[in-house]
Structures are given as C-alpha cells and as structure tokens.
C-alpha cells in the first residue's frame, strides 16, 4: 500500500515540478499566440510503432544487403522528420483569445469561451483543445479564419474559478508526432453555491410550487410602478397621458401607477443558519433564485455584506456573486 502511495507522491511531485516550470514559461494573458517556445513535440504511441518498423526494416536491409529496403527505411525516417515540421507548423501562430467566462453553480460545468484565430495562409486541422485532464474538443481552421470554442470544466468549489492551463494539442498529419502547447488565458469565473430547496420558516413558504405569493401583489394607486393604461378621463392630469400611444392610435390613454404595498422579502443569514455554512449559502441561493422567478423584491443580509432591496436579473446576479464570494475558498 505504502509502495503505491509512494509512487503516487513521486508522480505528484514530478507533476508539480513540471507545473512550476511551465508557469515560468507561460504568462497568463487574455490573448496568446502559440510561438516557438510554447510548442513541444514528441513521438506519440503510434510514433513508437513506426520507429519500431523503421528499426526492423533497417536491420533487414543491412542484413540482406538490400539497397531498396534501406532506401525505404531512410525515406520513412526522413518522412518522420518532415512530419515534425508539419506538426509544428500546424500549431504555430494560432492565436487564442479568452473572451467570455460564464458563471455557473457548484456541480455544473463552467463554460469558457475561446476565440481561435488562424491569421496565416496555412489551414489547420485536427487540433485538440482542452483543460488539463478534461474532455477534448477537436477543431480545424481554414486560412484566415476564426472559430469560437466553448470549453467546459466541472465547477467543484464555490468561489472564483481559474480553470488553469489549456492544452492545445495536435497529431496531424501522420499521427506519429504529438505536438502540444500550454497556454493560460487568465480566465476567471465565479461559481455560485448550488441551490438547495428548503423551507423558509419566517414566511411560511416552502419548496413546493403552490406557494401563494399573491399577498405580495397588493398595490395601491401611487407613483412607483407602471401598472398599465386606462382610458383618459376628462379632468385627469395631462401629464399622465401616454402620447406615444395617441400618436399611434389617435385615442387618449393615461398611464396608471401603483405603489407596491409589500415592501419585499428580507433574506437573512440567521434564518437559514446551519452548522455547515455551505448549506446556508445554498439555501439562500435557492431562495433568491425562487424569488426572482416569482418576480419578487428581496434584500440579502449576510454577516459581512448586505444587498439592498431589488429585483430582476441584475440584482440576482449581484446577490449570487455576493453569496459565491462570501469568504470564498482560495482560487482553484
């Protein structure tokens, strides 16, 4: 047992050594282009089969004194070297631009959008792109073209997500030489806590769909929110007339405004306190999403931050960010 864990720790150490060496070479930047000092080449598994074939052919040619076999051995060898060039030029000068990082929830896939550009005259083919140890996406690009690629990585922890280095790899054209490069596009996405449905004792609402939010709809005539149009009555204030509507239909309507009686929900940390703070955050997440879905106002109160009363998607995003980043674990 200890033997295997010993090996694992050694490979782990080597891995971290490689990582730090790579870090020295690559600087994170939103826009990178693959250059000479980024690209590595090495024979792939099939390359080793090919090399084996060459060795056997060479031995056979020498032994049987057969000039033609030797000729073909040399041709294969030369082709192998030419292949190195082809692989290199397939990758070189590809430009990567980290354009968008989409936020996600814990347990989902975080999506990162990358724009690849091929500014040269040389078409590229069969290039794999992926995050380290992740699923690969293969693409090809014709000359002077660009493509948008979405890479995914599982969001495991809440907080800021730096997906790390991206592997650009290609085996084209012959599959014997693998060329690869690591780039760092300086991505950062925010991972929100995964919402967990729960009961909200303070208001008597629960996770079910039949909750009655109607009490929040009580309104009275006022000045806050636009509530529709009604036919203009003589004597009403002209300021309320919807002139655009009159221009269109030549009939007079005036705007109606109401004040919402219900002041909005107040989400407090204490209401959902749990021994596990992640759960608390998850409950809060669930409720802010739910309330936004129902079109309600809410405010958020966390031990160190407060979010004002608000509604709508923007407000939701601000609150989600707050929840995600609240004492977030270190960047991963």
């Amino acid at each position, binding site marked *: 047992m200890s033997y295997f864990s010993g090996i694992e720790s050694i490979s782990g150490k080597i891995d971290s050594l490689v990582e730090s060496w790579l870090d020295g070479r690559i600087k994170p930047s939103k826009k990178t282009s693959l250059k000479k000092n980024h690209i590595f080449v090495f024979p792939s598994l099939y390359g080793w089969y090919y090399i084996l074939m060459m060795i056997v052919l060479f031995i056979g040619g020498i032994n049987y*004194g057969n*000039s*033609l076999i030797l*000729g073909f051995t*040399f041709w294969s060898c*030369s082709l192998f070297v030419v292949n190195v060039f082809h692989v290199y030029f397939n990758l070189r*000068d590809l430009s990567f631009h980290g354009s968008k990082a989409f936020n996600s929830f814990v347990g989902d896939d975080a999506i990162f959008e990358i724009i690849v550009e091929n500014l040269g005259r040389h078409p590229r083919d*069969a290039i794999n792109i992926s995050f380290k140890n992740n699923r690969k996406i293969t693409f090809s690009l014709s000359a002077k073209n660009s493509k948008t690629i979405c890479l995914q990585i599982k969001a495991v922890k809440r907080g800021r997500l730096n997906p790390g280095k991206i592997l650009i790899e290609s085996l084209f054209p012959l599959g014997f030489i693998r060329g690869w490069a690591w780039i760092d596009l300086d991505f950062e996405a925010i991972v929100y806590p995964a919402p967990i449905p729960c009961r909200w004792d303070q208001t008597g609402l629960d996770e079910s769909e039949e909750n009655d939010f109607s009490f929040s709809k009580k309104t009275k005539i006022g000045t806050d929110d636009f509530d529709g149009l009604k036919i203009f009555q003589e004597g009403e204030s002209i300021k309320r007339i919807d002139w655009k509507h009159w221009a269109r239909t030549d009939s007079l309507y005036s705007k109606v405004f109401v004040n919402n009686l219900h002041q909005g929900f107040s989400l407090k940390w204490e209401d959902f306190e749990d021994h596990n703070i992640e759960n608390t955050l998850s409950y809060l997440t669930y409720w802010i999403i739910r309330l936004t879905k129902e079109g309600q106002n809410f405010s958020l109160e966390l031990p160190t931050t407060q979010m004002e009363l608000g509604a709508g998607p923007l407000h939701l995003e601000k609150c989600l960010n707050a929840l995600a980043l609240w004492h977030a674990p270190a960047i991963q």
Partner: protein
Amino acid sequence: MVVNKHISPSVCFSLITINLLALFPHLNLLPLWLACFCCLCVVWRLFLLKKKIPLPRTFTKLVLIIFVSSGVLIQYIGKSGPEVGVSLLTVAFALKMLELQWVRDGYVITILSIFIACMWFLFSMTLFTGLYAVFIFTLAIALFVQMNRSHDHQKSFVSNIKYACIMLLQSIPMMVILFVFFPRVDPIWANNTQKIDETGLKETMSPSDLADMAGKNQLAFRVEFLKGHIPTEDQLYWRALILSEFDGLEWSVKSSEDFYHTVKMNRPLWLRETQFLGKPIPYRVILPATGQRFAVSLELSKPGTEEFLYTRDLRFLFPDKIVQTKEYEMVAYQKFILENKLSKLRYDQETKLPIEGNERSKSYAKKMFGEARQHPRVYIQSILNSFKQEPFFYTLKAPKLEKDIIDAFLFESRKGFCAHYASALVFLARSVGIPARVVVGYQGGEINPFGQYLVVKQLDAHAWSEIWFEEAGWVRYDPTTYIAESRILDTPEQMAGEATVSDDAILVGGSFQQWAGFRAIRQWGDYMELKWNKVVVSFDKERQEALLSQFWGKLTRQLFLMLSAVALFLMGALFIWFWLTSKKSQLNELEKAYLEYCALLEENGFERKQGETPEEFCRRISVLKPDWAQTLRMITDIFYQEYYASLEPSASLRGSRKKCKKAAHAIVRLAKSLM
C-alpha cells in the same frame, strides 16, 4: 493521451484496400491455399463492413490462427529463409483484418502494409517493384492523413493523396543524403535470399538442356563496353563453361581442376606465358543472380583484380554462389595465344575419349585426317566444309539420340543445333589426337540504343569448340556458322518470338510483339531497369566506399564542411521559408519599430501609458511637446496605415512585407530625428 475510438467505415474501407494491394505481390510466393485464405480474410472483412455485422469473436479467431499457423509450419517444414518469415507475416496481416476495429488497429495495419511492401524487395528488385512500393507507401501516408483529420473536416481521397505526395517529396532530399552517406555496416548474419533466376546455364548441360534455353527470352546479362566501341557480333563469344570430359552422352566440366585466385599476386607460369595481343577491350558485366558460380567473360579475358577464381582454360568463377546481382570489369583481347605448349598431362586430358562407342565416327575421322595429310588445320577445315556442303540441318527440334550419339548425328539424322555440331567436331578432333574441347556460353547480344550497352539473353546461349594447335594455342571454331543458310530450319529468336519484323509486315499480319516500335519501348524499359540497378539496387557497402573515397581522397575537410553547410542550408531554408511566409513576422517588424519609438520617447520622459493606443499617445504627447507634433503625427499615420493594410486579406505577402519594412525604417528614422 490518445483515445481508443472506433474507426470510421471509409477509413476501414481504405485499410482493406491497402491491405489487399500490399499483399498482392506476395500471393505469388505463397502456396495456393494460403493465398486463397488471405484473400478470403480480406473479402470477409469487406463483407462485414458492408453488412455491418459484428466481427468474429475471440474463439473463432483463435481457431483460425491455430489452423493457419499449423498449415504454414507444415508447408515449410525443414525450409528456412525469408519465405517462411514472409509467409507467416502475410498471414498474420490478413488475419489482422478480422480484428480491425479500433484506431490503433488502423495504424498497425497501415504500418504493416508498408513493411510488407518492402518485404517484396527481398525477392525482386526491379524498377517496377520499386514503383509499386512507392505507390503503396503513398497510399499508406494518405491513410494516415485521413485517419488524423478531424471528423467534421474529412477531405476527399484525392486531397489526402495530394498531401501525402507533398510530404513524400519534401522528405526526398534527406532520404537521398542518408542513402548516399549513411554508413552501410556489414550484415550481422549471413544471408542469401534473392530470387535466383535458374533459367541460365548450369555446370552440367546436356544438348537438350541447351535446346530448352532457346525459347527463353529472359535476360542473361548486360555488358557495358568502357571504351565505347562495341565489337561486332561475330566477335562476341562469351565463355561461360568449358566442357572437357565426354562420357558418351554428355560433355561435362573437368572433374579435377586447379583453381587459381586472382587476388594472389604470384601468377602461375602458364599464365605469365600466355600472350594477350592487340587492342584491349575493357568491359563491365552486370550479371543477375544465377545461383551458379561461373562468370561470363568475353573471349579472351585477362584476370584482373576482381575476386575471381580462374582455371587453366581461363574461365572464371566467383568464390561463392552468385545470389545477388554482380558487376565486374574485365579486359578482353581478341588476339591471344593460350597454352601454346601442352604438357603430356594436359594433352591426355584434352584428347581423352571413351574407348567404346561411336566407332563409325572414329574411322571417318581417321579417313579424313589421312586425306588432309595429317595437317590438323586442313583436317579441321575439311570437316567444317563437309558440314556446309553435305545436307546438315540446323534445327532446335532435333531428334533425341540415345546410343552412339555422334554416329547417329553425323550419319543418320544430320539434324541438330550448336551443341550437336560442337560435340561432333570436338569428338572428331580428339579421335585423331588433336586436343579439343566444347565451350558453352553465349554468342552475340542485342545492342540497346538508349544506353549503348549489350543485352544478352538466354536464347543467345551457344556451344562451340576450341581446338589446340601447336604454337597457336587454343583457337575457337564455331561449327554452327558453317551450316548453309538455307538449311537453317528454325532459330532461337523465332522460338522466342523475337525476330524483328519491319513495320510493313505488321500490316500483313505480323505479330504485335515483333513490331519494331514495340521493341524500342522494350529497349527503353530495359535501359531504365539498368539505370535503376546501377544507381539504387547495387549501391551496397563497396559502392558507397568507392563513391565516398572518390571524394574523400580529394577534399576531405572541405567536403565535410561543404556537406554540413549544405545540410544546414537546407534546414535553414525550410525554416526561413516558413518564417517569411508567416504573416506575423511582418507585423512584428512594424510593432518593433513602434516600440523602439516608444522607448526613445520614454528616455526623454514621455512614457506611453498601459493600454494607450498609438493615436491617444500621439495626441497626448503632441499637446505636451508641440514642436514634435508634426513628426509624431507622421509616425502614427505610417504605423496605422501599414498595420491595417497588412491585415487586409487581399494584401499580397511579398508586397506588404516590403512596405512594412519600409514603414518600420521610416518610423525609426523619424523617431531618431526627434532626438
């Protein structure tokens, strides 16, 4: 690293095709049942592909493997050599088709097909074989390309082939360099495998064997005459075997012989006393593998420095059986005196005849010798005259003679070909005590107009005699030439369908093969084959050493430097070409110039802020330093103009590169003028 995926049907189909093509030449070598089996495997796989049936299970495959390998082993029991290995390999290759599912299998099969195509070189090294292997190699490369294209970007078969051809052409220079300069080490274990053409002369020949050769159109050997001048046909007698012993039915080579080694410096006395007169004719023979040991030589050739064994009758042998194409040079003299004196032993050897048999011929000989008054030359001439005047016929379909063959030939059938005549003449000479022997070899040959070399075919095989006279030594007599022309019933050329017919005759129904034009095509093909052999096939260790020492001797260090320079130049040229054609490099020049300008300004205290565009920078500094405004404006304008112009897709590479360079220089110049 590489995911093990299923291969796509189109790739599978291509793999099956290449499998079949690579196997194809080997089917000849395999026993029939095995060849059928291989084809069956391939067809089976095709069937499975079309019908989308799953592949056979492990058990089925195991059974097949056991069945086939035992079959192969039984077939080749006791035999060794490459045939066995190649058979096993081809069978394995065919069986692999049944296992073809994953990408990995695709690679394995393609690599194996290249390997198997090269294996055919062990058995045949002709130009055609080379071209066929190149064809398979190209297909294999195209297959690799096809397997590696991304799935949404599959290109047509033709475009894959094009890509493969480009890569192959790019790899030719390095291949040539390696071929010429890579040291050819000696074999690790001794081998002889090349297919031996056994249709030629052998050390024991009966007349009927010689007649059989008349129908064979195969190449015997080629000769290049190094001084340019090719002797006339009647001078082209190629000595191969010298038959001095007669047992009543057959002539054969002397059973006990002294062999001398050419490389040894001390020549025997008799050789030193041999006179080679007249103009030397240097020539080079290119002899394919015969499995025999004798080398053909033009009458009469002097031993040179080649590694030969030679005999007293100056026939030459290789130390080992010839299993590869050999090239050797010799010098011939048409006038010579060989063995002008015979010792008693030699005399007895060359006049020996069986005591019994052919009595009638013996008495006839005595009678004729008497009539010639015991003059050997006159006697021989009278015999030859009798061949001409009396009804002796030349035909290849002579009746087979059983007993007293000389008698039967001379007095009864009077029909025979060169072997009969030579045999009879030698017998008659020996009967009266004149030393004589039968020489078997080749006569004549066809001049290839393209390469100015001689092509000698098996049908040129001939037998004649050498007769010894006092003081003159051995003299050649070819009795066949004395036969009256009208009495020649059929010739070897006719047998092989070789006689040239003029263009008119083809209209009258001559065969296509005899058409002169077709002959020219064949001759050109032969010329190509010769060149191929000389340049590629026979480029072995000795050749390489000779080639390199030719250079090495002269300009060692200079050559080495020149070679390294050439190699570096080639590699550098490739890099530079790619670098120049990369768009980015132009922009880099421009950007570098601009950064230099920024650096100059920074030295004077005007730093460009991070993220500040050239336009913004220009404006800001113009405000701070108005007298620089105009120059800064110019610099910025140039920069923008060239930068965006070169990004245009329509911008030509070379034109915009020049412009960028000019612009870069202008920027730096202007910037410096400010300081």
